[in-house]
């Protein structure tokens, strides 16, 4: 690691005022410390923000608020999360390992960088790590790459599981920034971005802003939900394809459906067409297969990952099916 200062700001305001491009916030460290060891992140200083950020989960009748410093494992065990937002717990438990979930923060999870092997190996070209260098994966080993929303400059995928559930549940990201008194809000769907011609940017968080929490609106998805994650081994691996699914059923019909995926794009991906299709339908294997096909047809796989289209279709079908037995 490059030598750096470790600073302990005593308030959020002080943390924000100290933030610069070469100064980074440190929370759980599970991704940042790793990137620093790899010399991919080379900050001059770290601001230890864990003590000043909320590690509380609070709920009202309308929303759930997860503090930025809440550990992944705390969120997955929280009674309110489990009773009213269980998809979140399910997604968290599909990710990483118990040790990492004990360390990783909610905000950090949103900010974790891609696990693309070309990004991680500093001897290989990567536009995300080193803009202008070229994308190694696009014409290379793209098995783990994106199948939708990719650009000629980047085909990396977003690695989080929690974020897929948050995307499905229309969460919002709360942050503060210098000069603003009020907490600022970004809808989750707009938080992460597609690579376009600036893949070095993972998200739309304003520069030097500090995430303070994640808000999830009350929802009718606490009964019929599922998180399906397909990976090369049964645990402790990043997704090839993952699907967060949730159904609001009334009588024999689907009132509302949510479908989001990880492992397919530079950001958590919502399958709006499939969701719309499911609205008002009577659940059946055929209907689920049709919805899954709608989603899969939207994709545009790379030379090396055509299988993901099939896998996505299967995963959506299984996830929707699992919603009925959850």
């Amino acid at each position, binding site marked *: *690691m*490059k*030598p*750096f*200062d*470790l*600073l*302990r*700001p*005593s308030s959020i305001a*002080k943390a*924000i*005022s*100290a*933030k*610069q491009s*070469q*100064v980074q916030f*440190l929370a759980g*460290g*599970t991704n940042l*410390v*790793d990137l*620093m*060891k*790899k010399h991919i992140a080379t900050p*001059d*200083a*770290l601001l*230890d923000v*864990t003590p000043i950020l909320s590690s509380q989960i609070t709920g009202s009748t309308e929303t759930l608020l997860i503090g930025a410093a809440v550990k992944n*494992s705390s969120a997955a065990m929280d009674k309110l999360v489990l009773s009213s937002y269980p998809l979140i717990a399910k997604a968290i438990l599909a990710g*990483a*390992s*118990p*040790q*990492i979930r*004990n*360390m990783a923060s909610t905000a950090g999870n949103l900010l974790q960088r891609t696990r693309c092997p070309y990004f991680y190996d500093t001897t290989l070209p990567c536009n995300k790590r080193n803009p202008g260098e070229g994308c190694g994966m696009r014409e290379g080993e793209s098995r783990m790459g994106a199948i939708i929303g990719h650009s000629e400059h980047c085909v990396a995928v977003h690695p989080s599981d929690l974020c897929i559930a948050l995307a499905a549940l229309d969460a919002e990201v709360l942050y503060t920034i*210098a000069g603003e008194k009020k907490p600022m809000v970004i809808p989750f769907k707009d938080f992460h971005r597609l690579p376009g011609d600036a893949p070095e940017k993972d998200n739309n968080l304003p*520069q*030097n802003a500090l995430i303070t929490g994640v808000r999830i609106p009350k929802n009718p998805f606490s009964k019929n939900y599922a998180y399906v994650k397909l990976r090369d081994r*049964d*645990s*402790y691996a990043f997704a090839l394809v993952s699907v967060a699914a949730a159904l609001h059923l009334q009588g024999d019909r689907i009132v509302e459906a949510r479908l989001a995926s990880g492992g397919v794009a530079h950001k958590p991906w919502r399958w709006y067409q499939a969701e719309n299709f499911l609205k008002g339908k009577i659940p059946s294997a055929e209907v689920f297969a049709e919805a899954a096909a709608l989603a899969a047809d939207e994709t545009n796989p790379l030379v090396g990952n055509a299988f993901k289209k099939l896998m996505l279709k299967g995963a959506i079908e299984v996830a929707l099916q699992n919603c009925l037995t959850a």
Partner: protein
Amino acid sequence: MEQPKISRRFFVSISAMAGAFAFIPASVKSAYISAKNLFIPQKRALPLSVSINKKLYKLQQDTRTTLLDLLREELQLTGSKKGCDHGQCGACTVHVDGERVLSCLTLAAMVQGKEVTTIEGLANGDELHPMQKAFVECDGFQCGYCTPGQIMSAVACVKEGHTGSVEEIKEFMSGNLCRCGAYNGIVKSIQQVAQ
């Protein structure tokens, strides 16, 4: 955008360099950053006070030192193992304030004021912890390198209550890789202690 200024009084600890950095105008600073390839920053040390296996340590530590390297290289507590150094194997698992974490991704500075327990602190004198005893009896290892991490994780796994079935144990122990594949014995050890 105007560069925010850093003031010394905001911080418990602050270095001259980052402080100085903040007062340089943005234009100069960007030139400075592009030239930084020629500039080799000096290492920084921070005071660190931490309890490890119920013993209080007061140290002056390089900010870059991970908890794992602190244990292994500075304190000669080599029971916690380095299997990957990147949070991908679990061999370095220790407890911080009673919870299992990876010491390789934990900067030593992050355990300031905390209680760390390593494999060396698990036994009660000569009396092995029941999990250590179970691992010996059930042969929950071969080469033994992942074993301290497995045991620290297993103790937490029982405490967390993730021992309802073989499948549950396996899932909640999957953050600890064992290349010898001693998973039969590891699961059996945990079942024995959970009972």
